[in-house]
């Protein structure tokens, strides 16, 4: 598949503060790509660079292989769903959606047909005459999506489109957005700071921190093979601690040697180890080597969350088995669930 958008060595700084640091990203046609990272890491700036609202000091933006770095925003064939909708308050729903078509001088019958299609697509039939300020947040969001999609963009940029909606509405809209993306067959570049949203919706997740890409991969890759402690910590809950790679396929932590599936780090090299809370099995104390004492137990709906104190580390465990605080237990971790990462500065232990 060819790349529809490429960011080549993009560098953006505001008032000397670096926001995007020599940023490289290639996005394939018809992909659902999510930019994921904590607030302030440069996600919006990346979208605005693609849309043409930010002029990077260095680097190029390619659209279908063509350099569009110098093209002003209104000439770019991408459309944006803005963070706070940015609907035109002085137009009704119909005129909001028709805006782009009127600019391009589309014939009136065509406009009517397309707006009707869009209203059907976003489930807002019969809302044509409504004032946008009389709509709920979710409905305004749908108008914003219809207004952007009516122009048949090849790429839709969405900046935290569900951020202002409540949890239940958000789940519903996630499914609708996926349906719309499949139905239209276009590329979505989606920004969120919600890791669960990113994992459930995307083909590709781009994890960012401080204007730098931390990892690019499928949701499975990102979750199962985090590239560094930041990604591991940001994507779901994790136990992250220091260990030592004895040799290939053998790692030592808590004074115990564990077989693992990673190789290529060298011998006797300090590494970071990640174990997901749900990947730790609870055994009776006498049945395992890695032992600890349960400190707290919290019921989380589907599972119990237990904090378990071992010799050197406080473990977070998710399990459907329940133990009491004070219980001595053993923890079993199979090799597939031990993720080894290159050591970085500033990790625990």
């Amino acid at each position, binding site marked *: 598949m060819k790349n529809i958008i490429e960011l080549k060595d993009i560098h953006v700084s505001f008032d000397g503060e670096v926001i995007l640091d020599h940023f490289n990203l290639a996005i394939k046609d018809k992909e659902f790509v999510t930019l994921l990272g904590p607030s302030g890491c440069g996600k919006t700036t990346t979208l605005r660079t693609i*849309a*043409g*609202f930010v002029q990077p000091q260095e680097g190029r933006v390619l659209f279908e292989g063509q350099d569009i770095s110098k093209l*002003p*925003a*209104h*000439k770019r064939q*991408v*459309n*944006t769903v*803005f*963070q*706070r909708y*940015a*609907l*035109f*308050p*002085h*137009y*009704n729903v119909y*005129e909001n959606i028709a*805006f*782009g078509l*009127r*600019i*391009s001088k589309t014939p009136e019958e065509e406009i009517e047909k397309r707006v009707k299609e869009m209203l059907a697509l976003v489930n807002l039939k019969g809302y044509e005459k409504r004032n946008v300020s009389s709509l709920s947040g979710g409905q305004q969001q749908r108008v914003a999506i219809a*207004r*952007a999609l009516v*122009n048949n963009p090849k790429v839709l940029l969405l900046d935290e489109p569900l951020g202002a909606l409540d949890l239940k509405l958000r789940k519903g809209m996630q499914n609708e957005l996926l349906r719309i993306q499949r139905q239209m067959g276009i590329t979505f570049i989606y920004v969120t700071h919600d890791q669960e949203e990113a994992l459930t919706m995307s083909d590709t997740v781009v994890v960012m921190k401080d204007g730098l890409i931390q990892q690019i991969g499928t949701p499975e890759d990102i979750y199962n093979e985090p590239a560094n402690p930041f990604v591991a910590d940001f994507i779901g809950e994790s136990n992250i601690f220091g260990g030592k790679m004895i040799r290939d396929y053998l790692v030592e932590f808590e004074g115990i040697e564990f077989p693992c599936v990673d190789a290529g780090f060298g011998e006797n090299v300090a590494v970071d180890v990640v174990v997901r809370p749900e990947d730790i099995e609870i055994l009776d104390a006498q049945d395992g080597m890695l032992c600890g004492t349960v400190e707290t137990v919290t019921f989380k709906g589907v599972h119990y969350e237990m904090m378990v104190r071992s010799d050197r580390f406080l473990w977070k465990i998710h399990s459907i088995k329940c133990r009491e605080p004070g219980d001595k237990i053993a923890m079993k971790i199979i090799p597939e669930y031990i993720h080894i990462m290159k050591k970085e500065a500033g990790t625990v232990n």
Partner: protein
Amino acid sequence: MRKFFEKSYMALIFGFLYLPIAYLIFFSFNEGKSKVIFSGFTLKNYVNLFRDEEIMQALLNTLIIAAIASVVATVIGTMAAIGIQRLRKWQRNAVMNVTYIPVLNPDIITGVSLMLLFSIFGITLGYGPVLLAHITFNIPYVILAVMPKLRQVDSSIYEAALDLGASPALAFRKAILPQIMPGIISGFMMALTLSVDDFVITFFLKGVEVETLATMIYSTTKVRIDLSMNALCGVMVLVVLIILILANLPQKKSGNKKREERI
């Protein structure tokens, strides 16, 4: 208790502000020459007024100066407000403080200083200087009327219009202008009334030939006081009333129009 104060406040307002005006207008219909004894109803003072060429010329001058000055000031003031809005915060505050100075400055200082300015450059006082002065003192009022509206506008709405393919000029016209229009209109109306109203600044800059209604009334009352002046006041009150009514009308109208407007 509160009701009582509200009522007496209203009574005072009506008493001090409107009674003299009502009195003035009432006697503009007086048959006789007296300003104290009403001897019968007539429209002859008004007829005389409209026959008086000097007064008609002054009226025309007033309207032309006010119209041109307020239109030009509205355009410049609106553009200035947009520029100021885009400045950084401290720059914006600085410029806004400078904008307030002419508003707070006594008219007489504005008038005298402009007169000195024009004479330094050897420009003969008259129509041009009066017009320029009116434009100048109107601009801050337009800026002050437009700024609050502009501040309410979500800047991403302008970007949304660009994003949907509108050129910067079109995006401004389609996305920003309709939203700040009430501010522009009230700024324009304010400029119009200030211009029609102005005496002090015009007085210093008019030279010998140009007279507006205000300067005309002033110079006339020094020599003769007859009832056509009352009639003139009656006309001016009427004009101000009409402006007031117009100022309140267009918002409703443009609201309807906007909905039907097509790009």
